[in-house]
């Protein structure tokens, strides 16, 4: 029953499963009060404040404009891009009927591809023949030369893709953002798209101007949070999404996250911090339980509350700070950002690395510009082959990035 409809009182705000009137917990993910704005576990469990940090002053609204390159002018990283330029907003260049939407809906005003005559409403259904039109987000791919690539896919069981990604070039690398809309309520797919676009624009703009990647990540997350918060028409139906970003700036990697979308380091192996590993710690019930030593990992993940989010972007989330991690890998590899549609099936970094690096060429070698996209596609395929019941989004950034002056494959 993944069709969004009014057959139920609402949809679970965590997993999108339809919720019946008297359900106190989501049948699927176990979230309590599944349709209301509380994403926290039941009241008997209290969590410490999320990653206490000194409050940052609100960032000034970025002047960067998100530009959507047309297919005739494929995006290419330049040595010193203007702030925010060359942002490839996931999906927009490939949007279906209606093209990139500038309004609130994911569907532009278009003509129905089925009957040819009907206008397509904001919810995607043709006003004449009734068929739902593709949103353009069923399967989206984008790449930035050899610097980054991403794919996002509906998966096998969902009616719509609420994941989104955005890629942007940096003077000496690239950045990427993946957001996973946590609600199937109207607005959540819009939330993830706007959040990813806004965050990537802020990241690219700040880093290009010389700002430290960690500070830029904080500003990007704050900006994304503002954008999502503004979508809320009322707190009870506030759209929400997760956030994970990566900045690969020369030899350095910085990731930031809010929620349970993840970043991994994938490599062929090497010394400790070059080996494949998870870079993020989920803001989820299970992860918190394990971190606080209250439960073993196996028990925590077996609990039906395991996937409850403890932090997210949205009007009902309050002010949230991203958690951050930075490192300089000692050997070549790739930074992977992904939504839980991938890591639910392949949680182990070593397994992901085996899929990702399963090619003749590889990072650090003379790989072609299309290699990152191949990696992203392989990871998506692995998720779909494993069941792929959720939306799957994967972004891949090789590190170290290709030398700007000898752009690979071009």
């Amino acid at each position, binding site marked *: 029953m993944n069709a*969004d409809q*009014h057959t139920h009182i609402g949809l679970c705000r965590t997993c999108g499963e339809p919720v019946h009137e008297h359900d106190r917990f989501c049948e699927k993910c176990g979230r309590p009060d599944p349709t209301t704005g509380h994403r926290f576990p039941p009241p008997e469990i209290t969590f410490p404040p999320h990653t206490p940090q000194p409050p940052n002053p609100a960032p000034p609204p970025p002047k960067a404009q998100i530009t959507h390159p047309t297919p005739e002018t494929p995006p290419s990283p330049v040595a010193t891009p203007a702030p925010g330029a060359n942002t490839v907003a996931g999906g927009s260049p490939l949007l279906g009927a209606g093209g990139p939407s500038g309004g609130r809906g994911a569907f532009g005003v278009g003509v129905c591809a089925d009957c040819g005559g009907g206008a397509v409403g904001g919810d995607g259904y043709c006003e004449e023949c009734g068929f739902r039109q593709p949103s353009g987000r069923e399967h989206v791919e984008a790449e930035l030369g050899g610097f980054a690539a991403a794919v996002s896919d509906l998966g096998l069981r969902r009616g719509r893709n609420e994941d989104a990604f955005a890629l942007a070039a940096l003077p000496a690398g690239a950045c990427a953002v993946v957001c996973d809309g946590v609600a199937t309520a109207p607005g959540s797919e819009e939330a993830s798209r706007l959040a990813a676009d806004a965050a990537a624009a802020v990241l690219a703009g700040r880093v290009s101007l010389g700002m430290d990647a960690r500070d830029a990540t904080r500003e990007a997350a704050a900006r994304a949070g503002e954008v999502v918060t503004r979508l809320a028409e009322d707190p009870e139906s506030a759209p929400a999404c997760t956030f994970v970003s990566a900045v690969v700036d020369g030899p350095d990697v910085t990731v930031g996250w809010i929620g349970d979308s993840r970043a991994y380091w994938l490599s062929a192996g090497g010394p400790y911090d070059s080996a494949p590993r998870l870079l993020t710690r989920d803001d989820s019930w299970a992860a918190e339980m394990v971190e606080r030593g209250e439960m073993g990992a196996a028990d925590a993940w077996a609990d039906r509350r395991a996937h409850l989010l403890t932090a997210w972007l949205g009007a009902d989330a309050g002010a949230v700070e991203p958690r951050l991690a930075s490192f300089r890998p000692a050997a070549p590899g790739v930074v992977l950002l992904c939504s839980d549609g991938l890591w639910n099936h392949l949680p182990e970094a070593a397994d992901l690395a085996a899929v990702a690096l399963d090619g003749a060429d590889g990072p650090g070698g003379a790989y072609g510009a299309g290699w990152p996209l191949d990696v992203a596609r392989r990871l998506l395929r692995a998720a779909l082959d494993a069941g792929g019941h959720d939306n799957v989004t994967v972004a891949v950034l090789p590190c170290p990035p290709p030398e700007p002056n000898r752009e690979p494959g071009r």
Partner: protein
Amino acid sequence: MSDFPEFTVRVDQNPFLPDGGREMHAIVTVEARSSGGGTGAGRAPAAEIIIIDTSGSMSYRGKMAAAKRAARAAVNVLRDGVRFAVVAGANQPRMIYPQGERLAEANDTSRRSAAQAVGRLEAAGGTAIGSWLLLADRLFTGYEDAVKHAILLTDGKNQHEPAEELDAALRRCSGNFQCDARGVGTDWDVAEVRKITSALLGGFLDVPDPADLEADFLAMTQAAMSKEVADVSLRVWTPQQAELRFIKQMVPAVEDLTGRRVESGKQTGDYPLGAWGDENREYHVCVEVQPGDVGRQMRAAWVKLIAGDEVLASGNVLAEWTDDEARSTRINGRVAHHTGQSELADAIQEGLEARREGDEDTATARLGRAVVLAREVGNEQISGLLDRVVDVIDPVRGTVRLKREVSKADEMSLDTRSVRTVRTRHGDEARGG
């Protein structure tokens, strides 16, 4: 009229169709919650006409005395400001209160005067219900924005005017006011009263014991007084090349609305539902659509509750084609329940009709089927009434024997209540009402 109750529409369905599947069923539940804090004090202006059969037969078995008590009870709960009248019905209708063809405004004085006038009702003459309804229609003229409601009490068949005159009267009155009816005694015709109330968007019940009339009239009038919005319609959009196979009210009673469609635009039709108060009703919608490829989704129907130009609530009936049989073969529980209740009503009415015509085989088969269905849908009242008409040998397989001696009242009660449904349940909690 500006403060409508808060309406919600919920759609229950299994949206999944198999490859090539066309027929989509859904239960649309419309619920209105009064914004007035549940006091039952409706805000819409109201007009109420009480029509009492005063044909000669009303003088038997204390029916007239009971009808007077019932009419007085109804008058006494009219709230101040309501326009009302009391009409006596015989070969011709006659104004009992006020005098002259008009409506009076309810207040302490008029309620007292009306109660006194009711005391002067006398049983004499015949039954010509069409003419009574036409008088009511004339009285209601000029109160277009009010909740217009009539209560009709009869104890006999419509013998003193041609059937065509009743039909013509129903055509004239339909859509102008609503009418609930009560049949007292056992000489009235269930099918006839069903036809009248169906045309006038009302309900009817049998009242075998005249002593029960008073409480019944009180409840009916209070329900009418609690209506807050006069004319509500269900607007149904369907895709091009789709066909709305049927739309039936299922709760509180089975009523096929399919034939009442009024075209209201491209691909939309309106189905009048009458006045609403603090209540909920359920509708079974069946749409036949053009199949889509596996994986495609369609809006198979878009239902909107409207009052005037205002959309009060809306819901979607969706369709999604799948090759996953586990999904496409699942039947939504509420659709199954209402399908059973609808078939139950048909089985009872057909079984009783066959029984009246002496076709015992059909009667036995249909009433046996009714026994099975009544158990399945959990309609205990119907099960109990069936027990008075047939001897149940095997309630699971529906093996029954027609009783030789069946009281007229029991047969009429079963016929009357065949359309009364029990509400569907969500989870384990029964819904009230």
